[in-house]
C-alpha cells in the first residue's frame, strides 16, 4: 500500500486537528511553523497544554501525532520561496493552515507550479472556508487574486471550536485529495456560521483568464485518480 504524505503549513488551531487526524489515518506528515506556544493559544489550539508553553509549535504537534502512533516531523520554519521546495518535497497534498493571507497565496502558488494537490483552510469568527485545489482547475489566485485587505481574525476574531471544525473538514478534504479522489477538486466549502448550521455552501469557480499562478502550472494536469496510482 502506498504511503501518503502531506505537508501542513501552520501548527495552530487549524493545523492541530488536521495533523492529528491525518496522522491517525496513516499519512506521513511534515509540519511547518516558526512560532512558539503561548498561553493565549491554548483555548483554541487544543493539541497543546500548559506544559508546552514557549515550546516550538511544529515540534510539539509532531510529538502529539507520533504519540498517537503516527509519523510526523516538525520544522520551525516559515513557508517562503526559500523553504517551499524543502517543505513541500514529496507531499501528495500541501495544506495551508496558517493565519496569514500571504502564506495562503504562497502555498497555493507553489502547489500549482509544482503540480500538487492543496487545501487552503481559513476560519473567522463562527465560520470558515476550505478550498480543495489541484492542477488543471481554477486556483486560489483565480479565486481571490491577491492578498490585500482580506479580513483576518485580528479584525473580527475567531471562536475556538470553529477552528477545530474547519480543521476537521480540511483534513477530510486533504485525505480525499491525497488518495486521488477528484470529486472535490476546485470546490470551495463556505461555512457561514457554525452556530446555525454545519452545512456548507459548496461553490465552484472557473479559472481566471490571465491568472499568473496558472501560467506557471505544468502543462498537463498531474493529479492522477487513485486507480491510476495503485
Amino acid at each position, binding site marked *: 500500500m502506498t504511503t501518503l504524505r502531506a505537508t501542513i503549513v501552520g501548527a495552530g488551531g487549524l493545523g492541530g486537528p488536521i495533523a492529528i487526524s491525518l496522522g491517525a489515518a496513516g499519512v506521513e506528515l511534515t509540519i511547518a511553523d516558526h512560532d512558539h506556544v503561548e498561553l493565549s493559544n491554548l483555548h483554541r489550539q487544543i493539541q497543546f497544554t500548559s506544559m508546552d508553553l514557549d515550546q516550538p509549535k511544529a515540534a510539539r504537534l509532531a510529538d502529539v501525532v507520533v504519540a498517537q502512533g503516527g509519523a510526523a516531523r516538525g520544522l520551525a520554519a516559515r513557508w517562503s520561496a526559500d523553504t517551499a521546495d524543502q517543505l513541500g518535497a514529496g507531499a501528495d497534498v500541501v495544506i495551508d493552515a*496558517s493565519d496569514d493571507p500571504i502564506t*495562503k497565496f504562497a502555498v497555493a502558488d507553489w502547489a500549482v507550479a509544482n503540480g500538487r494537490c492543496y487545501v487552503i483552510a481559513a476560519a473567522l469568527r463562527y465560520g470558515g472556508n476550505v478550498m480543495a485545489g489541484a492542477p488543471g482547475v481554477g486556483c486560489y489566485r483565480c479565486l481571490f487574486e491577491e492578498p490585500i485587505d482580506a479580513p483576518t481574525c485580528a479584525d473580527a476574531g475567531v471562536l*475556538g471550536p470553529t477552528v477545530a471544525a474547519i480543521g476537521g473538514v480540511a483534513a477530510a478534504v486533504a485525505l480525499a485529495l491525497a488518495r486521488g479522489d477528484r470529486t472535490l477538486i476546485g470546490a470551495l466549502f463556505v461555512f457561514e456560521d457554525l452556530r446555525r448550521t454545519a452545512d456548507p455552501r459548496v461553490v465552484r469557480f472557473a479559472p481566471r483568464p490571465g491568472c499568473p499562478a496558472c501560467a506557471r502550472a505544468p502543462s498537463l494536469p498531474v493529479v492522477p485518480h487513485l486507480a491510476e496510482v495503485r
Partner: protein
Amino acid sequence: MPTIRVPSALRSFTGGASDVEVAATTVRDALTELDRRHPGIVARILDGGNVKPFIRIFVGPDDIGGLSGLDTKLAERDEVAIVPAIAGGRAEVSDA
C-alpha cells in the same frame, strides 16, 4: 425575493443580520438595494464598479464571473453569497 448572504466580516453593517432579502432582478440591483438599506457596505465589496479582487460573489453555487457578472439575473428564490478571502486562527471573540 432574492436573499443576500452577508459574510460575518460585513455583518457590522447589517446589525448582525446574516441574510438580507432584497427586491432585485440582477446582482447589481441587489447590491444597490443592500447599500440603500445598509449604507457603506457595498464600498467594502465593490471598487470602481467592479468586485474587489479578494471577494467573489456566487448566485447559488455559481460564480457570477462565469455568468454575467454583476448583471447576472436573479430569480425569486436565488441566494447571493458574498465570499471574502479570510485568514484565521489568531484572535478570539468574547461574545459567544
